[in-house]
């Protein structure tokens, strides 16, 4: 049924966004706060489980979809893993952008993980991250160190097993004002289609 609807929509090129209410009533917007306070370990997250998971070998596992370490984020692909994971920036922003992104445009270019160089206190450090998802925040200098400010972009994430989700990274601080707690809101399409509403 979902596949049929998808085909009709693609063929006609019409009604995009009009039928979103009845198209997939089971897709729910969820919000998750992940504790990624450790600066040496990665925390693995699975959209289908809506939870963090333990992964014995992240390079071979396709279970996980996103991995977090402080503000750095990986997808399960490229240099980070054997999965089909990658990410793209929709360049939509905020709640309105989140709502409006109902289907992934065909023109979307997905980017896989690679090594990037980041300026740190002394020289440079290299990390394997998803370069697209490295734009989820900006750094603003403040008195008490630096503050991580969400850029509010809505990202399209391709999961380890090749499905899609739209993700909005909303905050870097827990309710107790501890940094390294990334809160994100997402909608995960479990049927593998490009419909996110």
């Amino acid at each position, binding site marked *: 049924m979902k596949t049929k609807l998808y085909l009709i929509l693609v063929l006609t090129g019409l009604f995009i966004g009009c039928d979103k209410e009845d198209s997939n009533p089971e897709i729910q917007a969820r919000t998750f706060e992940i504790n990624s306070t450790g600066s040496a370990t990665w925390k693995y997250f699975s959209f289908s489980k809506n939870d963090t998971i333990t992964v014995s070998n992240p390079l071979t596992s396709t279970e996980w979809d996103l991995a977090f370490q402080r503000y750095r984020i990986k997808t399960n692909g490229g240099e980070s893993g054997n999965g089909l994971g990658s990410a793209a920036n929709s360049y939509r922003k905020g709640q309105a952008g989140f709502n409006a992104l109902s289907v992934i445009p065909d023109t979307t270019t997905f980017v896989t993980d690679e090594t990037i160089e980041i300026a740190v206190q002394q020289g440079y450090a290299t990390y394997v991250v998803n370069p697209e998802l490295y734009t989820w925040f900006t750094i603003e200098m403040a008195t008490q*160190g630096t503050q991580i400010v969400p850029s509010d972009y809505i990202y399209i994430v391709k999961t380890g097993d090749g499905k899609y989700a739209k993700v909005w990274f909303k905050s870097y601080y827990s309710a107790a004002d501890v940094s390294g707690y990334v809160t994100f809101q997402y909608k995960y399409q479990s049927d593998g289609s490009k419909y996110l509403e």
Partner: protein
Amino acid sequence: MKQFLFLYLLLLPGVIYSQEASISGHITGIDSSAASGATIVLKGTTLGRVADKEGFYYFNKIIPGTFTLRVSLLGFETQEKTIIILKGENYVDFKLEETNINLNEVVVTGTRSEKTLKNVPVITQVIIARQMLDLGITSVSDALQSIVPGLDVSQFGTRTSITMQGMDSKYVLFLIDGERIAGEVNGDIDYSMLNMENIDRIEIIKGASSSLYGSNAIGGVINIITKKITESFDGKFYSRYSKYNELFSGGGISLKKGIIGSRTSLNYSRTDGYDNTPDSPHEWTQNPYSSFSINQKLELTPTSYLTLVPYFGYYQFERGNVSARPAHDFYQDLNLGLKGQYYFRKHSFNFSYYRDRYNTFNVLELLNNKNDRVSYDIIRSVRTQGNFHITDKNSLIAGLEYNHESLFSIRNEEGLKDAGEAVIYIQEDIHFGKKWNLVAGIRASHHSNYGLNAAPKISMLFKQGSFNFRTSAGTGFRSPSLKELYMNFDHFGEWYIIGNKELNPETSKYISGSVEFSRPRNNSSVTIYKNALSDMITDRWLPDSAQLTRQYQNTASASVYGIDFISKQKIINRLWLSTGYSYVNSHDDETGLQLYGTTKHSGSIAFDYNYRSKNYSFAVQIYGKLSGEKFYEITTEKIYYDKPYSYWRFTLSQEYKWLRLSTGIDNVFNIIIPQNINFISPGRRFFIGLNIDFGKIR
């Protein structure tokens, strides 16, 4: 000698009222009109009077002897008369002269004893409350930046920071009535804690004064003197409003009856804030805040020879949240103390106890605004000082002091950390003839962390005609702060910064010379100075540590030299011109870099027109500050600087009897430099101010 004095002390109370005398007189001001409101102090006693509406004053129950009467009134030259008071009635009249340069103004900071400006061997700059009012000044940091050449105020995010003579605030000691202020962060106290309504004057001394005040008095001392209680009733209210809902408001009430005087002072300020840098929307140029403080003091004079002043102060500050965090700052301070002074013949003895606690909290907005403790800092100090008037040309000060500080901070090692310091200081003040005055002192201390330390200082004043020549040489020091000793801060696991319990104090050698030209219509001075610092504490990368770690070490040394010029002169009748210029060159001996935040050239200019009659006064001020580049040199490649700027303020105020209205323009030429942190104006702003003097409604 001391036993001798003590014996007299015991005998004294019986002597007081054995023979009685009274002193009365008339004080006149402009065109022989009554100088009502003038303050008359009988030096060497606790006695003080305020001239009544007709300009008369009266003291009774005085023991005959030689006394000095000091008369002061705002806008007039302070006068002193030394007279022999005989049994019975004595009459002493005063005729006051109008002036804008009051060199008879009494200052206390330079020698820890009362001296007039013209006689103090350490060049002292004074900002009086009236001056701040005339300039439309709203905070202590604003006053300092506006009036003191070579003093800069910067805004590092939410933190206000000062530099003076090329030295940052770690090396400038801030005092309130001679007491240290708790809650310093990187050397900066919370300047908004300083209740403007409670300030009588601010005294500024540049250069080393550690011989009297101990740690941190390397670059200078800024001492805020709070208002005294002189009149039977005095009430004041002020308010100033400007764009961004910026409000500064406050009031004070003084009451005096018999042996009890009371002064209550309130201060409230707030703003919605503004942001000059829209590309970083969560980091504002001026954060929104609201702040409140109350100060209460009592002045008890059970005899004419004893004053006791118990006092307390409370302050709180809450910052509005514009950040990406679900939390905001809340600061709180509670201080209390007792000061006493006992006069004995021509000697006097002071004692004081003081306690100040400063708390900082993080208010967690998502958790019912729970106050999460970040740090608290407690300073305690107890002191006793004897002021011995040996002869008219020789006086001696000797003091004992114990200081203690304890600090809890989530950025330090666990638990409450503390340090104590026991101190003895002595200062000799000798006059040679009428022209020479020499003041020499030494302070020896034992600190719980690093042991013994001594700081000597010598100052000399030579007067020749209209010229005063001064020279000072001394050592300064700065004890390692509790933060530098015990810090343990994990920068998100990426790098660490840790304290060092082996730290020694930083030391400095300071020398200065100044020439002052002093005439009733012109007062100008030039000061040159050199300051050499060694064992400076800086945080350095530790080699070969598993984690990237910075640790505080006594490694750096620096040289600072410069010149300051200040002048005030009468151009035509009622029109005065004030100018100031400062040049400073400071460099790290190893790297050759300027010390962080140095402004080499800065200057100020002010035109001040003042018309005063009995019931009405009118004042116009045009004030300009000019600043060269301000350097933030980190390495030879990383050199940032603030752009040069000029800032102008125009103020017009009128006073009729008890009411004063002022209007003005801040930043007249609408200069906005978003990237600067030493100049954080949002552009041109108009302001209006209202002052009511309830003491005059009668």
